C-alpha cells in the first residue's frame, strides 16, 4: 500500500483555501455545554487532501458541520476559534453570508447517497437548482451546465438522465450526482464526510478515483472525513487523527504510516485488516467516553496502555523526531 502513497504535497505553495484556527465546538447535554471539539487547528490548500480520521464520536463530523455552519441550533455551537473559507471569516459572518457561501464556495458530500437526494425532484433539476440559486443562471442554461457536470462525474448518458429520479439510480451513481451537486458552483473547498462508506468496495474505488481526478482538475481543497485508513493511504496528502475532540496526531501521510506515534494511531492501524499480515487483528478495548464522562487531561488515557500519572494533564502537540510537520500529542512519545 505504501507504493500508492502520494508525496506531492508542497508546504506553503499557495495560500490555504480553508483555515481552521483553534476551533472549539460545544454540545449541550441537559443544561450544560461540553467541549466536543477542543481547539483544533488546520489548513487545507488548493489541490490538497487532508484526511480527518477517528472513531465515531471523535468530533470529525462536528468539525465538518462547524465549518459548514450547520450545527443544529440549540444543541451545538462554535464557542471559540476562527474558520476562514476562501478568505471569508465564517465565524464572524452573519447567517445570510454563510448561506451564500454554502454550496457556492464550500461544498459538502454526505455519507448516505441513497437518502441525500430529494426523492420527488428530477436529478437534472437538483443539480441545476444550485446554479440557479447561487449563480442566477436561467433554467435552461443551468440544466445545460448540469448535463456537463453529470458528464464530468461520468454518469453515462447524462443528457437523457436529467429527467430521471433518484430511485432510478444506484448508490454509486447517486454519489456521483452528489459530487456533481457539490461541484456545481466551482467551490474552493469540498468537505466529504465518509463519502464512500455506504458503497460497495468496487464502487468505492471508482468514486475515490473520480474525486481525486475532479479535485486535481478543479483545484479543490478537500477535507476528507473517514475512518478507513486504506482510503487515507490512497488519496490523502496529510492526515489528522482525532480522539475525543482533540487532534492527537497530524502529519504527512507518508510519515504517519511510516511512524504512527500516538498510541491511538497505533491502535487504529493494528485494528485494520491487512492482506499481508499474519498478526491477528487487535480491537481497541472500550469505547470513546461520552462527553459527560471525558477524563481531564489526555482523553485517550482511559483506554491507553502507556498511561501514567502525567496523563491527567493534556499534553501539547510536539514534533515527532525532527520532522516539524509530524506532530503528536502524547507525554510518552514526546521527544526528549
Amino acid at each position: 500500500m505504501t507504493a500508492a502513497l502520494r508525496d506531492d504535497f508542497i508546504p506553503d505553495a499557495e495560500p490555504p483555501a480553508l483555515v481552521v484556527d483553534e476551533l472549539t465546538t460545544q454540545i449541550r447535554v441537559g443544561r450544560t455545554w461540553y467541549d466536543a471539539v477542543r481547539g483544533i487547528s488546520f489548513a487545507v490548500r488548493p489541490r490538497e487532501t487532508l484526511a480527518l480520521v477517528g472513531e465515531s464520536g471523535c468530533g470529525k463530523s462536528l468539525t465538518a458541520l462547524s465549518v459548514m455552519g450547520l450545527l443544529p441550533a440549540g444543541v451545538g455551537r462554535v464557542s471559540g476559534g476562527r474558520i476562514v473559507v476562501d478568505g471569508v471569516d465564517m465565524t464572524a459572518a452573519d447567517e445570510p453570508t454563510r448561506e451564500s457561501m454554502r454550496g457556492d464556495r464550500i461544498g459538502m458530500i454526505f455519507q448516505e447517497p441513497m437518502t441525500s437526494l430529494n426523492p420527488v425532484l428530477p436529478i437534472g433539476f437538483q443539480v441545476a437548482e444550485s446554479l440557479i440559486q447561487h449563480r442566477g443562471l436561467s433554467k435552461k442554461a443551468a440544466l445545460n451546465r448540469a448535463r456537463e457536470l453529470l458528464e464530468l462525474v461520468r454518469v453515462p448518458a447524462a443528457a437523457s438522465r436529467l429527467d430521471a429520479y433518484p430511485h432510478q439510480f444506484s448508490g454509486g451513481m447517486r454519489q456521483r450526482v452528489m459530487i456533481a451537486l457539490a461541484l456545481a458552483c466551482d467551490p474552493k473547498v469540498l468537505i466529504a464526510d465518509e463519502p464512500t462508506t455506504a458503497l460497495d468496495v468496487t464502487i468505492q474505488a471508482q468514486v475515490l478515483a473520480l474525486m481525486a481526478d475532479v479535485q486535481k482538475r478543479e483545484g479543490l481543497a478537500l477535507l476528507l472525513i473517514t475512518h478507513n485508513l486504506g482510503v487515507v493511504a490512497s488519496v490523502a496528502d496529510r492526515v489528522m487523527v482525532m480522539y475525543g475532540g482533540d487532534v492527537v496526531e497530524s502529519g504527512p501521510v507518508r510519515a504517519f504510516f511510516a511512524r504512527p506515534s500516538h498510541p491511538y494511531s497505533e491502535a487504529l492501524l493494528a485494528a485494520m485488516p491487512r492482506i499481508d499480515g499474519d498478526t491477528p487483528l487487535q480491537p481497541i478495548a472500550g469505547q470513546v467516553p461520552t462527553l459527560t464522562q471525558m477524563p481531564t487531561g489526555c482523553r485517550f488515557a482511559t483506554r491507553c496502555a502507556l498511561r501514567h500519572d502525567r496523563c491527567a494533564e493534556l499534553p501539547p502537540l510536539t514534533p515527532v523526531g525532527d520532522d516539524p510537520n509530524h506532530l503528536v500529542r502524547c507525554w510518552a512519545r514526546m521527544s526528549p
Partner: protein
Amino acid sequence: MSAPAPTAAAPRSSAFGRATRSGGLALGVLIVVASIAAAVAAPWIAPFDPNAQDVLLVLSPPDTVHPLGTDAFGRDVLSRILWGARISLYVGFVATLAGVVIGTVIGVVSGYYGGLVDRLVVAATDVLLSFPQLIMGLLLVAVLGASLTNLIIAIAVTAVPAFIRMARGSTMAMRERDFVDACRALGYSDMRIMFLHVLPNILDELVVMASLWLATAIRTESTLAFIGLSVPPPTSTWGGIVREGFDNLLDAPWMSIFPSLAILAVMIGLNLIGDGLRDATDPRSPQ
C-alpha cells in the same frame, strides 16, 4: 424454466396502475366530474328557472314536465338541485382549498422551525380540534352572519387545524431526512427548502386528505343549510332544498329525497377518490 418468456409485459406497478386497478377511483371521478359538469352547465340544462314559482303546480309529484316534482311554491326540484349544486360544490371546493393552503403553510413552517412558535401552534390546533367540526362551523356562521363568503370562511376554518396537524407531522419527519441537510449544505434558504423540497414530498398525503375533506366540507355546508345557516333563500343549496322539503316530508317526499341523493352521491364519489388515491400513493397497499 427452459427459456425466458419473450417480451413478457412488465407488471404494472406504477401509481397510476394501482389507482385504476380497483375501479373505485374511476367511479368516484366519474360521479364527481358529472356533478361538477351538471353544476357548471346548470343555466343551460336546467329545465326551469330555479326560483320561478307556479302556484297551480305546488307539491306536484315527479312527472314528465317536472322529472323530480315541484316544491311547496311550485318550483322545479330538478332545476333547484342543479342550481344548488353550484353553491354547494363551490362552497365545498373553495373552503377546502383555502383550508388546505392555509393549514399546510402554517403546518410546514411550524414543523420545520419547531420551537416556541410550534408549541403555540400545536396548542391552538388542539383547542380548535377539540370543538366538533359542525359546532365550530355553526358558531362561526352564527357570529359572522349567514352569507356565501362567511360560509366559506367558517368551513375553511374548521379544515385548517386538521391540515396544520398533518402538514406539521409530515414536515417534522421530512426535516430529519438527509436531503434536507444536503439542501442546507447547498446554501438554500429555509423558504426554498420548505416549499420546494419538503412540500412536494408531503403533497401526496395532503391530496388524499383534501379529497376526503372536500366531502366533509360539502356535508358541513349541507348541514348548516339544513338548519338554516347558509346562503339566505330563495337561493337554493342542497341542504336548503332538503330543509324546504322537510315540512312536507310525508306528502311530498321527493322534495327532500332527491337533493339528499345528490349529496350522498357526491360524498360516495369523493370518498372513493380519496381511498383510491390513498391506495395509489401508499407503498404498502396490496399490489
